[in-house]
């Protein structure tokens, strides 16, 4: 008996029975409808869940037959894995949605029953295997939404609903006609039989039917440009209703498309193109939206288009069913929960305009849920969308659909842009604090469904990771650590910092177990450097909500990244780093305006990587790093993409605009993490990419280009640093310049080059850590940021002064500290490879580096003490201790390089041992170059020549100023370099942003009137038609136009002749009767009125009467009888 209750059919019994019962129960008691509603809805969700579980557990597909007959005769439904998955998820969202919408739902029992039957209708659309039954369920769903739209009371909501009704009625009418035509051709309505007989759908009738069905489904998915009606309704409907339309109804329609897809096999490319246009355009339009729900609507349309596109593309290539299921399932679940959650949040906060969003006052839970949902929408880890998008790109790459990869990634980038712009505005500043209290009151109710969505998404992400074979404890360790720290958010700031340090040390150490080679070296640097620098956070005693968990995620993700053995794991960690750093940046109030820029450039870099990994996987057939060794020349494009991704993330000159902004405005200790540590992540990536390049033959030439880029970055960023008045921004530019050296060193792709690169990485990390902490200390003590404003601090902050000078010396490449060794190695390596151009650039960069670093030290610490600074004190110990620890590291590296260099060299050996690039140089030989005396002499000579040259220019360029001195000297050069301040690159990127916005505006204007555009979509689909059909139709039309010129009478005659012709060729008696009647009528009518219209009316009347009169000529002895249905039949005449 219990077994009988757990059957998918009971979903419909609950839905309909519950729906029909609700009014009855209302008569009995006002409360009963609510009880019945929840019982039925909960029952539907539970049933679908249990049945789905059973199907998954190998219970086999559940075929549901109605009326005790088999499919072609009766309607059948199916509950398989796919159906179960979709139905269960939709039902879950429906339950949550009812919870969110409860306040308006309970107002009237009518809405309860509408909601219930609507949910049942979506289940029906998913399960049914009958074409006409699909239409009925489509109508149930449509009417349900029309009814729920009635909850919106404003005139604009009514108007939007009416538009929506017009569009969907048109669409479903097309479906109806299409279904009828398909039945006419295939003589069945069962979808399975239709698919089996799809060969019959060849003629014009079948093709039209098929096209109409497709047009309906495509229109229902709101294609661009015919989606204004959808967006309007998303904008004006109550958020809960909009959410159900966005995820539930779309899910039903999408599943219908999925179900019927085998029928559309010849048109898959067309579907994909239509979806791609919609995907890009909807995301472009999204950029311009000012209304939250409308923007979510755009994103919704785009997501459905992405699903459709993925489905069409993957089916076109005949990919394995499991892969398709993974991609579609992941994307779908992601869209479902994330979009519904966001709509519900919008409803809970109840602010229409994006600029009115100010969620900070609503409390941390709200912001966290909000951010998590946005992350999910953007397809970032750990949510299902990330895994699905990865798989999608991999599959597309394998199928050779590179252009489609570009479409997917570009659209996703646009989507992330407007979604995160929303986030940045929402957390932007603390306007409207007065509204805080009421908002707080509201969110407690409104937040729960969305929070449940986040939980489900997280669960889905883990499941997806498990499915894809990437679920391992270490991969999720950073996240788990973050969650653990999040649980202890109530503690004092410093306690949390200590906890974070302990956790990071422990987990980081665990993560690094068994990691060797270059990764191990980077790991040691990241762990040690990260913990030391992050400990500087102790100087602040405020709570810093969210900072420490995110910091733990950031540091541990960086370490986990090194452990990655497949490109998927690598990319996962990479995205985690991006996310953690973006959100950390968002925690710094002054940096919020740059978060979006930072995030978008990071994401663009990540997408380049993703595309690159896709290509690698396509050529190698695996995503495992160990297989990279076997990469042939075919992997060259992949190398380019990977390298580009890393270079964008490094911020090489040209795409550097985001980096100084972010690094300079972040909180002090945060920029001390960003600049020295996080920039090394892409450097590590570049190591991997170049490693790939050594395998492909074109790689080496490209390496030369990368070398140039590196040195140009080094020189360009040095110039910018020299120009910069803001101390942190100057340090950021300097960081960039130093990274440029590293890039160049990596691109050398020789043993020596790589040793150098690692050496520089270590050195730069420690040096920049010290200097950023110095800047932090000075800003903390004085509140000043501009170099000119400071001066003479050496006496007030002697310890800071000492470490800073040591760091500056080390960085500038002056002997005897480590930086010198690095630069020397680099120049030597370049000489070795005969890269004279980059070498010269490197020399220039070094010289400029000397200048700006001298300026930094001088402006801050030397000269007379400014009066405003007279009460400045020494930096807090929390900042000094890490600095001195780092200094100790520098000293170690400088004076005892061997303990570092030997493992470095050993780590690199396996990378190059088997390749051509080994220079045949022993370790001893490398060190032999590093002859201190010779080096010092050469370095001093170069430096002296440079200084002399500059001094001469200075003297010659201008009369000596009144106060000759270091400050004047720099002022002169900064004046000379003033043109650089105009920042062409930034203008370029601003231009890109503006162009995107304009494009969005244009795309929006391009949308013509909605109903017309629905038919515009039809126009697209009329491409389905064979060409000759069009000409067949156009020709008579043309000729009739031609005839019109010859006069009206001519046309009349033509019409009458045509009618007579019909009669003459008529064959059956009845028809001839009708025809004769019609012709007579036409002639009479035409004669009376002398007008075509008259003739037509006459023909109609005559035809009808002719048919009624009928043909009495029959068989002898037989008579006509009429049965009670008014039907004539022939039988023997009564005698």
């Amino acid at each position, binding site marked *: 008996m219990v077994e009988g209750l757990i059957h998918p059919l009971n979903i419909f019994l609950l839905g309909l029975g519950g729906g029909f019962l609700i009014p009855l129960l209302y008569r009995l008691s006002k409360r009963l409808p609510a009880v019945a509603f929840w019982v039925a809805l909960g029952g539907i969700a539970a049933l679908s869940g249990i049945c789905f579980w059973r199907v998954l557990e190998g219970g086999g597909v559940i075929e549901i037959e109605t*009326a005790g007959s088999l499919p072609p005769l009766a309607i059948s439904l199916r509950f398989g894995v796919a159906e179960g998955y979709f139905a269960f998820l939709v039902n879950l969202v429906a339950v949550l949605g009812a919870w969110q919408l409860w306040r308006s739902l309970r107002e009237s029992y009518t809405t309860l029953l509408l909601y219930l039957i609507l949910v049942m209708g979506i289940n029906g659309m998913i399960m049914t295997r009958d074409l006409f039954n699909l239409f009925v369920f489509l109508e149930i769903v449509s009417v349900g939404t029309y009814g729920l739209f009635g909850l919106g009371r404003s005139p604009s909501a009514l108007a939007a609903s009416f538009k929506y009704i017009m569009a969907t009625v048109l669409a479903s009418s097309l479906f109806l006609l299409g279904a009828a035509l398909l039945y006419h051709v295939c003589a069945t309505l069962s979808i399975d039989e239709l698919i089996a007989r799809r060969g019959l759908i060849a003629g014009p009738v079948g093709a039209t039917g098929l096209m109409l069905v497709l047009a309906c489904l495509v229109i229902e998915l709101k294609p661009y440009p015919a989606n204004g009606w959808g967006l309007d309704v998303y904008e004006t409907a109550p958020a809960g209703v909009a959410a159900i339309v966005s995820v539930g109804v779309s899910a039903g329609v999408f599943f219908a498309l999925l179900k019927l897809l085998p029928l559309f096999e010849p048109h898959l490319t067309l579907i994909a193109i239509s979806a791609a246009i919609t995907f890009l355009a909807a995301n472009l339009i999204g950029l311009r939206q000012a209304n939250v729900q409308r923007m979510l609507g755009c994103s919704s349309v785009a997501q459905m288009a992405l699903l459709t596109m993925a489905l069409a593309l993957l089916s076109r290539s005949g990919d394995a069913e499991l892969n398709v299921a993974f991609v579609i399932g992941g994307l779908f679940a992601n869209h479902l929960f994330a979009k519904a959650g966001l709509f519900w949040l919008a409803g809970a906060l109840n602010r229409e305009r994006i600029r009115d969003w100010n969620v900070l006052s609503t409390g941390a839970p709200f912001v966290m849920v909000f951010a998590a949902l946005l992350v999910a929408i953007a397809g970032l880890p750990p949510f299902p969308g990330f895994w699905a998008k990865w798989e999608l790109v991999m599959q597309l790459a394998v199928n050779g659909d590179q252009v489609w990869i570009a479409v997917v990634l570009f659209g996703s980038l646009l989507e992330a842009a407007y979604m995160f712009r929303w986030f940045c505005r929402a957390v932007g500043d603390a306007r409207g604090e007065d509204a805080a209290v009421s908002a707080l009151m509201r969110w407690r109710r409104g937040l729960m469904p969305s929070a449940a969505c986040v939980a489900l998404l997280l669960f889905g992400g883990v499941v997806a990771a498990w499915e894809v074979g990437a679920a391992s404890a270490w991969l999720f360790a950073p996240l788990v650590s973050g969650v653990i720290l999040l649980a202890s958010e109530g503690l004092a700031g410093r306690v949390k910092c200590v906890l974070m340090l302990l956790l990071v040390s422990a987990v980081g150490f665990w993560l690094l177990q068994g990691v060797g080679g270059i990764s191990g070296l980077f790991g040691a640097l990241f762990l040690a450097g990260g913990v030391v620098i992050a400990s500087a956070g102790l100087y602040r005693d405020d709570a810093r909500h969210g900072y420490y968990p995110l910091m733990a995620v950031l540091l541990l993700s960086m370490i986990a990244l090194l452990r990655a053995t497949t490109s998927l794991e690598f990319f996962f960690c990479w995205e985690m780093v991006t996310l953690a750093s973006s959100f950390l940046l968002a925690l710094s109030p002054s940096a919020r305006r740059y978060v979006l820029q930072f995030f978008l450039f990071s994401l663009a870099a990540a997408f380049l990587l993703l595309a690159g990994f896709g290509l690698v996987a396509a050529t190698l057939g695996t995503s495992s790093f160990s297989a990279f060794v076997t990469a042939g020349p075919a992997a060259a494009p992949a190398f380019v993409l990977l390298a580009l991704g890393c270079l964008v993330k490094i911020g090489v000159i040209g795409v550097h605009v985001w980096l100084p902004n972010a690094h300079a405005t972040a909180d002090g200790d945060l920029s001390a993490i960003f600049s020295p540590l996080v920039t090394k992540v892409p450097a590590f990536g570049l190591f991997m990419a170049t490693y790939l390049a050594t395998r492909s033959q074109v790689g080496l030439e490209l390496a030369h280009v990368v070398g140039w880029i590196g040195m140009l970055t080094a020189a360009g960023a040095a110039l910018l640093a020299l120009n910069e008045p803001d101390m942190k921004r100057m340090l950021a530019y300097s960081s960039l310049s130093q990274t440029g050296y590293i890039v160049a060193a990596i691109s050398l792709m020789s043993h020596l080059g790589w040793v150098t690169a690692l050496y520089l990485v270590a050195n730069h990390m420690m040096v920049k850590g010290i200097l950023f902490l110095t800047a932090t200390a000075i800003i903390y003590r004085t509140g000043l940021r501009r170099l000119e404003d400071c001066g003479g601090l050496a006496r007030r902050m002697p310890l800071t002064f000492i470490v800073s000078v040591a760091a500056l010396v080390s960085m500038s490449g002056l002997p005897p500290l480590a930086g010198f060794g690095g630069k020397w190695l680099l120049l030597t390596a370049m000489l070795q490879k005969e890269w004279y151009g980059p070498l010269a650039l490197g020399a220039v960069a070094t010289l400029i580096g000397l200048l700006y670093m001298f300026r930094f030290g001088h402006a801050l610490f030397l000269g007379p003490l400014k009066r405003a600074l007279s009460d400045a004190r020494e930096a807090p110990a929390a900042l000094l201790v890490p600095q001195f620890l780092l200094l100790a590291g520098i000293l170690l590296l400088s004076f005892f390089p061997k303990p570092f260099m030997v493992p470095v060299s050993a780590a690199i050996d396996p990378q190059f041992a088997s390749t051509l690039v080994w220079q045949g140089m022993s370790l001893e030989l490398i060190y032999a170059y590093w002859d201190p005396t010779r080096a010092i002499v050469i370095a001093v000579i170069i430096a002296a020549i440079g200084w002399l040259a500059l001094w001469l220019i200075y003297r010659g360029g201008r009369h000596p100023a009144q106060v000759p001195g270091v400050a004047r000297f720099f002022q002169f050069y900064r004046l000379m370099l003033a043109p650089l301040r105009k920042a062409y690159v930034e203008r370029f990127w601003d231009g890109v942003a503006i162009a995107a916005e304009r494009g969005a505006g244009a795309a929006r204007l391009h949308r013509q009137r909605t109903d017309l555009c629905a038919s515009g979509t039809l126009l697209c689909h009329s491409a389905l038609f064979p060409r000759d059909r069009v000409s067949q139709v156009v020709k008579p039309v043309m000729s009739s136009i031609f005839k019109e010129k010859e006069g009206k009478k001519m046309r009349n005659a033509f019409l009458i002749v045509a009618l007579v012709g019909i009669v003459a060729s008529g064959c059956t008696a009845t028809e001839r009767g009708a025809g004769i009647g019609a012709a007579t009528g036409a002639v009479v009518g035409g004669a009376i009125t002398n007008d075509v219209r008259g003739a037509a009316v006459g023909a109609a009347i005559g035809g009808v009467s002719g048919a009624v009169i009928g043909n009495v000529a029959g068989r002898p002895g037989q008579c006509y009888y009429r049965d009670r249905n008014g039907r004539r039949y022939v039988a023997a005449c009564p005698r």
Partner: protein
Amino acid sequence: MRRLFGAIAVLLFGVVLSGVATGYVERIAPSELARRYLAEVPLDLGAANVVTGILITYRGFDTLGEVAVLFMVAATVGLLLGAETRGTSVASRPEPRPPSELVSNGAEIVLPVIFLFGVYVIANGHLSAGGGFQGGAVVASAVGLMVLARPSIGLDHGFLSVAESLAGVLYVTVGILGLVLAGGFLDSRFLPHGALGAFVSAGAIPLISALLGIKVGAELSVIIDRFRS
């Protein structure tokens, strides 16, 4: 401009549809599925009207869905028109013009006939052209006429709503009976199918027809009445 777009759209649509018009070939014999229906409905279900047999049994799931659509529409119209107009606009509305003598007197004569005809159509759905929907529509048209003839008359919405809900619930129950007692959900064969052409025949089809008739009649009446306000 608007008309131009409209014309283009219609023209395009015409082009698409002309394919149907030119490519259409009339069937010479019923399709295989239709033949199966024509053979099995009378024998298996005992319904003389094959269309009704298909509608109520084989495609009963569609019919149930269709009933649900109608039910939702009645609810939606009530939601849209009931709530706001009740308080405000009825009071301010001028006294409606009384119906003409012809209508009011004609209605008195015709109404019983129409109602009777509706019941006949409902009850004979399994034997001849007709059925629950058709008969329900006839009944509702009588209600429409009644409302026209006597604008002051108020329909008892409570009764109608109970009637339609009860009919709906009973319909689902009959469906479940089919599931339990016969081959599947909405299977009408759990009652004996009797002699073909007899009034009491065709299993549960007349029962379902009657329920449909009540439900459709009640729903359409409610919808008509909602628009009256």
